[in-house]
């Protein structure tokens, strides 16, 4: 569980935010929505296995 996970997620978040603003300003609302959803999916995929890893560690440590 290293630190660059946070900056990775922050980077994706900022890129999605900027892209969203860019696309909505230039009149392509639906593509902006697609970008937001894509960013969300990417971040969730990254986080899901990190969560699984953490819960597995907690299970082994506490003998659950």
């Amino acid at each position: 569980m290293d630190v660059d996970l946070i900056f990775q997620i922050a980077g994706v978040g900022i890129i999605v935010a900027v892209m969203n603003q860019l696309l909505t300003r230039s009149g392509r609302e639906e593509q902006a929505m697609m970008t937001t959803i894509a960013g969300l999916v990417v971040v969730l995929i990254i986080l899901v296995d990190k969560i699984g890893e953490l819960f597995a560690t907690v299970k082994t440590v506490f003998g659950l």
Partner: protein
Amino acid sequence: MSVAGICALAVCAAIIALSLREMRPEMARLLALAASLVVMGAAVPMAAEFVAALKDFSLISRPMTQFLRPMLKVTGVAYIAQFAAELCRDCGENALAGRVELAGKTAVALMSFPIIKDVFLKLMNFL
């Protein structure tokens, strides 16, 4: 990672999440989730050391080992339930957080039942 490192990390993540909050609220919540994952990832090894020390200590006092296993399981359930409930509350889902805490309490009650039964049996014999 030292406690100071964890605190600095948490503050940085909070500030970044704050800047993301008005542009993309869900990304800010996901960033908060990632930050809490990293902090938990740093806290769990410390807990592992404590559990190992506790296990060594319990070899000395015989009655302790019988209650050590349920106690550790309860702590583990509390760790995970707290983690999930706070994140639900952070996303504004107070009802969901309450349900997660209820599930955690039920699991804890179930796990701690043998201890309660044992205490009552001893009490009965004593009276």
